[in-house]
């Protein structure tokens, strides 16, 4: 071995890295395995079965979980779309808007949801909706999600835009394109990988949220996390593991898409 790798390698670091991966994945793998357990009890393994997946779709609680899943996905899609649009506009102003007085303040405002602890945002939003007499329900969840998803959508978009030289747009405008045209035809397509990443990030953050939703949800409006939390309180049931496994698959799918989008972006 050369002296160079010698300096870099530390005994045990590889072991710890593998341990780290085991810790990260063990709980998820165990839950995935047990979701295929035929037994009603979560402690005994009685063989492979898709029974609990069937239960999720046709069992006694299926109506509740279907509605919750629909709510979750609708809220995540709408909130991610709105916050991505807002974040794209904001990033354009911050990165392509020159130096101006409100620039730092705007950045601070946009990253506010990242700095305030989630439980505090939840409490504040509850108090706010209550004091303006806004009835809690589907709409309050949607609005709250849109607001706190903005910085998550913003970060990858800004990072991408900073990597694009403005010479492309300048060139387009030299050829008599208007600013709007330069933005739509030149900048926006170049920014697409950042926008897609931002959208996916916002989507997952919205889908993931429990604390804020729990505070601002109204009568009978559940999202998947709140519905799962309600069920888990009375003990972990195999149907919850089946739902978890399916959500796990959705998350992994999203991250994989995002990974390849950003990778294709690097190879350009």
């Amino acid at each position, binding site marked *: 071995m050369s*002296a*160079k790798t010698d*300096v*870099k390698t*530390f005994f045990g670091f590889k072991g*710890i890295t593998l*341990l*780290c*991966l085991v*810790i*990260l994945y*063990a*709980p998820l793998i*165990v*839950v995935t395995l047990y979701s295929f357990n035929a037994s009603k009890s979560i*402690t005994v393994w009685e063989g492979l079965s898709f029974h609990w997946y069937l239960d999720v779709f046709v069992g006694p609680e299926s109506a509740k979980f279907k509605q919750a899943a629909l709510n979750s996905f609708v809220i995540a899609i709408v909130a991610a779309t709105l916050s991505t649009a*807002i974040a794209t*506009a*904001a990033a*354009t*102003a*911050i*990165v*392509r*808007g*020159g130096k101006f007085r409100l620039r730092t303040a*705007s*950045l601070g405002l*946009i990253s*506010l*949801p990242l*700095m*305030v*602890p*989630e*439980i*505090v*945002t939840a*409490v504040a*939003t509850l*108090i706010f909706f209550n004091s303006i007499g806004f009835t809690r329900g589907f709409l309050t969840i949607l609005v709250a999600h*849109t*607001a706190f998803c*903005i910085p998550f959508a913003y970060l990858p978009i800004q990072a991408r835009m900073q990597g694009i030289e403005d010479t492309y747009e300048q060139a387009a405008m030299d050829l008599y394109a208007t*600013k709007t045209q*330069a933005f739509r035809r030149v900048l926006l397509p170049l920014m697409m990988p950042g926008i897609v990443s931002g959208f996916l990030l916002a989507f*997952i953050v919205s*889908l*993931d949220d*429990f604390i804020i939703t*729990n*505070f601002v949800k109204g009568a009978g409006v559940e999202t*998947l*996390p709140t519905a799962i*939390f309600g069920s*888990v309180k009375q003990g*972990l049931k195999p149907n919850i593991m089946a739902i978890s496994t399916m*959500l796990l698959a959705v*998350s992994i799918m999203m*991250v994989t898409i995002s990974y390849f989008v950003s990778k294709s972006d690097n190879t350009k």
Partner: protein
Amino acid sequence: MAGGAASGGSAASDTYAKARHWLLLPSWVVVGIFVLAPVLMMMVYSFLTKEFRGGVIWEFSLSAYDQFFFDRGLFGDEPAKIDWTYIAIFWRSIWQAGAATILSLLIGFPTAYFIATRPEKNRAIWVFLITIPYWVNLLIRTVSMKFLLRDQGPLNDFLVNIGLIDTPLHIINTNLAVQLGLFYSYLPFMVLPIYASVERYNFALSEAAADLYATKWVTLRRILLPAVKPGVIAGCILVFVPSLGAFLAPDLLGGAKNFMIGSLIEEQFKGNAGNWPFGAAISMILLTMVLTILLIYARQQRQAEDLS
């Protein structure tokens, strides 16, 4: 999560300078109305009088903060003593979050270092492996942890089967369970910033030290660590701050004895207590603590940048 204040980079271009205010307007309106205004409203609520179970009376009062810091006896007419119970809950939260941070650092640093020293083409896949679990619903990860740690759960079964222990370890509903839960929730936050700074580190420095007969560990401690310190600090903040206000891990993995700030706040709004001004006051205290940490961090960052 913390320190998210994106720098915005250098304002190199002013192509859309004319439209900048219109472009920013939606974010000002949405974040301003639905995040900033609520936080300000919460501050106002913390100075109001509580109504009997839920809601407030619009009368100025310091009683929420008074309840936090002072004990005036059962009938409220004894001389005020300092009440340690809520301070103790904050202290416990700090301690739990701190333990989780140290645990994350012990595992996260070697991991980040190992990944950063892989051949360049393999690094992305390692980072990918580390980040995937973070994108799985936090609730589901916490529930999985609960399932894994049960007295008759897979972890204990496994340890008993390989003969490492005779009787199952009792982990669930202990402080350790909460620490493990927090550690598990935020571990990737520790790995990523450290990874980023180790990756930027110039290993020629270590080689130079080795040429001067410094041992590997001395090189690590004296040369590498100071160079990657910003990444380590960022990682610690990213784990510590969300752990401080965590709700799911203490609620699902700890029993009532492991009350943390998050559960205390939740109880004031969703639970029996129904004391809104008090819940708002606790939230304000938590927010102040977090913003102070972030401010100190930001100031040090700026000083470090000025130096370099």
